[in-house]
């Protein structure tokens, strides 16, 4: 029953949201684009408005760029692998018969609500610290040499911190999906003699595919811009410098605005490629 009048009213109602998002995207992005073609280093008082693609060339050809790409891929890939596998297992576990299911749920979901800076600080100081960390005590207890996680295995350590934060999210969503599974189908399969593994492979896993897609999508959105965990733990040292972090350092630490802006634009382009890919999946999933 949408008349022409209600339609134009509807457009008017969307307008503020679209407008602020457009402004938010376009103005700063155009400024970054402008700076990316300039040699702009305010600390040294250098400003030359047009130097062509020099910034892009030196950003893309620097070895730190490729390294940062691999770092973020490893990070996101590792975290996704841990949270999805762990999430499926935890969801199946929590769906089982038990006493105090509600309390276990509360315990499992809790890490998701801990702010990134706090969880990074807690892990860094109280678990990873080589002198007083809990892991060091454990190593010593078993007679082994304490291991300096954040400098010896920094990427792994950060993956662990972030995976700890996101595993609850994956678990909760997959648990919701598991609970909507028709139990009669499973029972029928069991009576027909299908072993547990093939029940998982052919009934449970296909049922979870949509939820897994959603988990991958949402986590990727948030994980590509991981920042606080790196900022607090290694500050980008020891090969934990992701693309986001590299650009941040160029812009705010070394104050090379031109180079950093070129890096920012490269990051935006790469994120858009990922976004288009992910949007297709969401779009498809939303249709049904």
């Amino acid at each position, binding site marked *: 029953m949408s008349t022409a009048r209600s339609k134009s009213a509807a457009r008017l109602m969307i307008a503020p949201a679209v407008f602020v998002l457009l402004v938010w995207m376009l103005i*700063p992005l155009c400024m970054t684009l402008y700076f990316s073609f300039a040699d702009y280093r305010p600390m040294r008082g250098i400003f030359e408005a047009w130097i062509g693609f020099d910034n892009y060339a030196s950003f893309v050809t620097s070895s730190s760029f490729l390294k940062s790409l691999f770092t973020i891929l490893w990070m996101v890939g590792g975290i996704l692998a841990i949270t999805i596998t762990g999430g499926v297992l935890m969801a199946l576990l929590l769906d089982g018969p038990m006493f105090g*299911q509600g309390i*276990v749920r509360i315990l499992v979901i809790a890490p998701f609500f801990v702010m990134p*800076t706090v969880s990074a600080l807690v892990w860094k100081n109280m678990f990873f610290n080589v002198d007083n960390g809990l892991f060091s005590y454990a190593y010593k207890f078993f007679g082994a040499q304490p291991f300096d996680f954040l400098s010896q295995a920094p990427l792994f350590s950060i993956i662990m911190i972030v995976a700890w934060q996101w595993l*609850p999210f994956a678990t909760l969503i997959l648990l919701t*999906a598991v609970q909507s599974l028709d139990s009669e189908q499973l029972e029928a399969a069991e009576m027909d003699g299908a072993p547990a593994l093939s029940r998982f492979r052919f009934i449970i896993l296909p049922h979870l595919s949509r939820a897994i897609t959603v988990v991958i999508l949402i986590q990727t959105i948030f994980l590509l811009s991981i920042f*606080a965990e790196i900022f607090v733990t290694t500050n980008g040292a020891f090969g934990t410098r992701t693309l986001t972090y590299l650009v941040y350092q160029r*812009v705010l630490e070394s104050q090379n605005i031109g180079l*950093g802006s070129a890096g920012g634009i490269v990051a935006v382009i790469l994120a858009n490629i990922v976004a288009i890919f992910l949007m297709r999946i*969401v779009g498809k999933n939303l249709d049904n």
Partner: protein
Amino acid sequence: MARAITTQKKVMWTALAWAFGLTMFFPILWTFRTSFKTEAAAISDPPVWFFFDWTLENYVDVQARSNYPKALMNSIIISVGSTFLGILIAVPAAWSMAFVPGRKTKDVLLWMLSTKMLPAVGVLYPLVLLAKWLGVMDSRILLVVVLMLINLPIIVWMLYTYFREIPGEILEAARMDGAGLKAEILYVLTPMALPGIASTVLLNIILAWNEAFWTILLTTVNAAPLTSFSAPEGLFYAKLSAASMMAIAPILVMGWFSQKQLVRGLTFGAVK
């Protein structure tokens, strides 16, 4: 047809689930426990588990340091403020997209979501520059606006999925019964939309409370919320723990209450 489950199986399953649950929760539990220790006890080797002299002095210390109440206030103002500002802008948009969908509605929705994927560093310097130029660097209003903008796509999406479930026929029925526009909004729509709006508010306060890119980089002293508060604690484990507990406790409680809505909210209704 419920299957008979042996008690033995249930007990084993319970033990396993609790073991996993406690492992996940352990870092928080450990932090909680350390926050009641003296600094000396906190780094004792080997660690003491529960039999130590529990003390509240860390909490008193952290409270007494002048910046805790301020950081707490900043966190509250920024997260609540940005959420309500976002709701104000998002409700009409989500409303019209849910009830008067056009050909472009789906594209607009996807476009909004894609802005969420814009890497924040891509606009970092311009934002710092604009903030300085407007004289709002390190101010609460800046963070309220910025966090509103980064969470707006999520707010619109969540509201949209909630509103879409309100049957449109009910409006027609109300109109047939002679309800005016005011009565329609006040007595028919608002009660049906309120639960969805409430859970959207709850989830976005949580997201804004924990946001740590812009809150760290756009604040120094005045507007710094809890995300940057606990940073300079260094190796004082007990104080670090007390500060951490105070920073996460309110949102932890809120989060536990909202876990049901969390699933459908954060998956935009794709998983219910």
